[in-house]
């Protein structure tokens, strides 16, 4: 068991070092691979955070350009996704500041038009499609009702499975704040779910 853990840790460290080397060289093939690897996770994070798919897609591109330009700052010591999410977060905040001096809380409501949390493009049966869509719409509405600051940490913890310390690094807040946001977020999510099911 410990051998497996050791091998996994060594492999992850090697992979991070390889990413850091590739980013220092600004190697397009490394970036191509990273975009492929993290496409869904990054977009999901941005959609959850911004509550607006169109804005999230624009920021998705800008994030990768920023990764290319600032790649030398990634030292390979922390997980790549932590660094990636932190960049995406800063970009979103910058974008919002340019538009209006709003905080992340102002993003509580999803943008008008298309549903911000679109169901996945799958090929289920008609029944599954109907039941699934209904449940997804319900969940999406409940999630969108949770304030963005809580939604963000909930998503990082329970969907991205990041450690509390990693979340703290992404959001740039102390560990105690992250925990407090998670507790409040859980409570808010549960209330929203209950409300949407009622």
């Amino acid at each position: 068991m410990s051998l497996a853990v050791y091998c996994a840790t060594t492999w992850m460290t090697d992979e991070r070092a390889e990413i850091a080397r590739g980013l220092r060289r600004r190697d397009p093939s490394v970036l191509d691979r990273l975009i492929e690897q993290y496409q869904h996770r990054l977009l999901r994070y941005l959609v959850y955070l911004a509550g607006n798919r169109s804005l999230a897609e624009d920021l998705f591109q800008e994030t990768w350009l920023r990764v290319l330009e600032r790649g030398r700052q990634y030292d390979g010591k922390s997980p790549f996704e932590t660094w990636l999410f932190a960049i995406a977060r800063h970009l979103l905040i910058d974008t919002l500041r340019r538009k209006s001096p709003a905080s992340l809380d102002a993003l509580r409501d999803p943008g008008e038009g298309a549903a911000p949390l679109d169901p996945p493009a799958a090929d289920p049966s008609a029944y599954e499609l109907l039941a699934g869509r209904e449940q997804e719409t319900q969940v999406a509405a409940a999630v969108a009702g949770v304030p963005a600051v809580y939604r963000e940490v909930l998503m990082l913890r329970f969907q991205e499975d990041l450690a509390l310390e990693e979340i703290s690094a992404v959001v740039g807040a102390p560990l105690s704040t992250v925990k407090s946001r998670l507790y409040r977020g859980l409570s808010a999510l549960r209330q929203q779910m209950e409300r949407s099911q009622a």
Partner: protein
Amino acid sequence: MNPDVHQRAQHLIAAALVEGLPAAEQAWLDQHLQGCAVCAQSAAGTRRALEALRWVAVSADRTLVEVTQQRVRLRARELAERQERWLPLVVSCGLAALASLVTLSYLWQGFAWMGEQWKLPALAWQAGLVSVWFLPASLTAVALWMQSRVTNGNHGTMHWSPALRGRRGGE
């Protein structure tokens, strides 16, 4: 049952999910949930909410990924070209600075001689010397400024535009 007990249970339900519980507290919670329907329902509700959160999938569009990769490659090429241009510039600036330092005393003597010949006040020929001294650096700065303007104008030529979104819809 004491309301504090339920409050503690509620806190531990969330704590178990957020940061995990020590064995003793987990055992206490398990025992409490077996005997308290309200708290057990609350725990189940929280679990369901989190499962639902995982269930909502957001996937990136293929076109978005391809356009992003293309933009990144273009930008990488631009940055590489810029870096290639910078190296000779830095080397030549270094050499120019070195040459200026070495020739400063001769320049000073030359300008002093010219000032004497043309009966110029000391301030005038010294100002001339300073201008000549800064001329290469000023020209380089202007060239770099113009170059950066051109490069910034070309930056990110391909965007995830509404037209592309329309194309995605048509696929």
